[in-house]
């Protein structure tokens, strides 16, 4: 579409209206539009060197970023197909799942692995936002719970990276039940005296925040991550409330006492390492 005139909103944009066609290997920051070499961007953990914007990280990459090199062992898990409501929102749910699997290369919105983090063997559960908005359905809930069970069985700490739009609408009430399932799984980890550390990444909303994301012993969040129960758009429409500056951003949650720290991606490993040493007293001593 060609625009004859650009309004002030367009002129205020920090990046050109007509985006240059990027050469292969080039990307651009979603925060400031600065172009960067994809390879260098990935080496910088998907953090923009120009503006510090934390780009979205696929679940397996996230685990690699957190783990000590060469220690990641994905936890093999069955992900049975479930379509409790035979849901169709314009595309049948099984087709939507298949498309998400093809697009992401992931079997579900939750990936679990055993890995070493700063020398401590942990169970990592990492969410894939690009898989149906990181939504929590019965398979993702089962995978998270299986990760918790493994942590209890082997006496490992649990580390979860949470990013999600909330419960998966396509599974209806069965998705809501996952909040209870994950709660029961977290309770088992806590009752075993094992630490559970959560990292909240942009965005993290709905049923995930209202269950295991908020139930961790320590909650870290990445700078600028949007976190909450209801999304800002819903709140503006429903309550016609004026949203305060920085509403639902990690820094806002920190100042309201909901999280322990805002931690840039490069600092996650050292902080998690220290916390695992501080709280890992009842974890198994032997590495995996």
């Amino acid at each position: 579409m060609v625009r004859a005139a650009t309004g002030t909103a367009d002129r205020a944009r920090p990046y050109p209206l007509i985006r240059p066609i990027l050469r292969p290997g080039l990307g651009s920051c979603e925060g400031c539009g600065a172009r960067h070499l994809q390879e260098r961007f990935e080496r910088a953990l998907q953090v923009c060197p120009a503006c510090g914007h934390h780009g979205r990280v696929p679940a397996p990459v996230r685990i690699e970023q957190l783990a000590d090199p060469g220690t990641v062992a994905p936890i093999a898990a069955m992900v049975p197909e479930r379509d409790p409501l035979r849901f169709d929102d314009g595309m049948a749910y099984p087709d939507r799942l298949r498309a998400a699997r093809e697009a992401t290369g992931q079997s579900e919105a939750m990936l679990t692995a055993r890995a070493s983090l700063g020398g401590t063997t942990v169970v990592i559960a990492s969410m894939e936002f690009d898989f149906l908005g990181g939504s929590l359905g019965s398979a993702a809930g089962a995978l998270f719970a299986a990760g918790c069970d493994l942590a209890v069985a082997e006496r490992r700490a649990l580390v979860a990276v949470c990013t999600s739009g909330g419960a998966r609408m396509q599974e209806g009430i069965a998705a809501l039940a996952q909040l209870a399932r994950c709660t029961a799984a977290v309770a088992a980890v806590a009752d075993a005296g094992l630490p559970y550390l959560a990292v909240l990444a942009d965005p993290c909303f709905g049923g995930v925040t209202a269950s295991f994301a908020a139930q961790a012993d320590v909650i870290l969040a990445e700078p600028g991550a949007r976190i909450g129960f209801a999304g800002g758009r819903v709140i503006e429409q429903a309550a016609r409330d004026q949203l305060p500056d920085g509403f639902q951003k990690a820094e806002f949650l920190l100042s309201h006492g909901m999280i322990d720290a805002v931690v840039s991606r490069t600092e996650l490993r050292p902080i998690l390492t220290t916390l695992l040493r501080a709280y890992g007293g009842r974890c198994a001593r032997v590495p995996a």
Partner: protein
Amino acid sequence: MTAVSSRDLTEAEDAAFAAVELARHPQRPRALDVIEHLFDDWTELRGDRLYGDDPAMLGGPALLDGRWVMVLAQEKGSDAMSRALRNFGMPHPEGYRKAQRLMRQAERFQLPVLCLVDTPAAHAGVGAEERGQAWAIAETLLVALRLRVPVISTILSEGGSGGALALALADRVLALENAVYTVAPPETCAAILWRDSGQRARAALALRPGVATALALGLVDELIPEPSPGVHAHPTLVMAALRGALVRHLDQLDALGAEPRMSLRRSRYRSAGDPVLN
């Protein structure tokens, strides 16, 4: 895919949304009506001891058939004034923290916890987010899961989102026959899926919001039958049936003992949502 004419589809969507509207019927008994019908010596206790008191969430001890129980209930209100006061049954974090406080008190004084669910969803607003709505719900789930005393929850009319589940993590979940129990109200579901809350009828059809779905998935244990056209036609009859069911389940749960009860509650939710509807 079977061929469905657009008229058939529209009719099915309208029927699905009509079922939601029946569950939202203004004359259905609200939590306070149920409390008045079922319990004696109801004594309301208020406040979360942290920030405020939430009129959308009620709590306090009461007598059911001669035994003390802790009642926790979402109250929607029954006229324009009380609906505004009760925020249409949508609790703020204060409500969930009051519920946690009273759950712990029930534990201390060995009172079974009886929850009455009637909410479209937890409140979505700036204040609710500032005070940690998600954190309040998440903690309520944990507290309810860990209770040593019996927990029975009844979905009265509308159970929506984590805001309902916070009071529905229980040893037994009952529901009035025409109630709905959903992951989100159809309006919100439509807004999420199609960015258009106007498609609520389409969402209502897809969500299968009736409590029969939750019954088939094992998330509700028993439906309390309602005479046609609904509980509001013969509330006394339905209330008597609900009282009978509550007493029967309380007796069963008492007989179980605390440890088996707790482990059964946990294992129930460890496979939650897995059975497949056919």
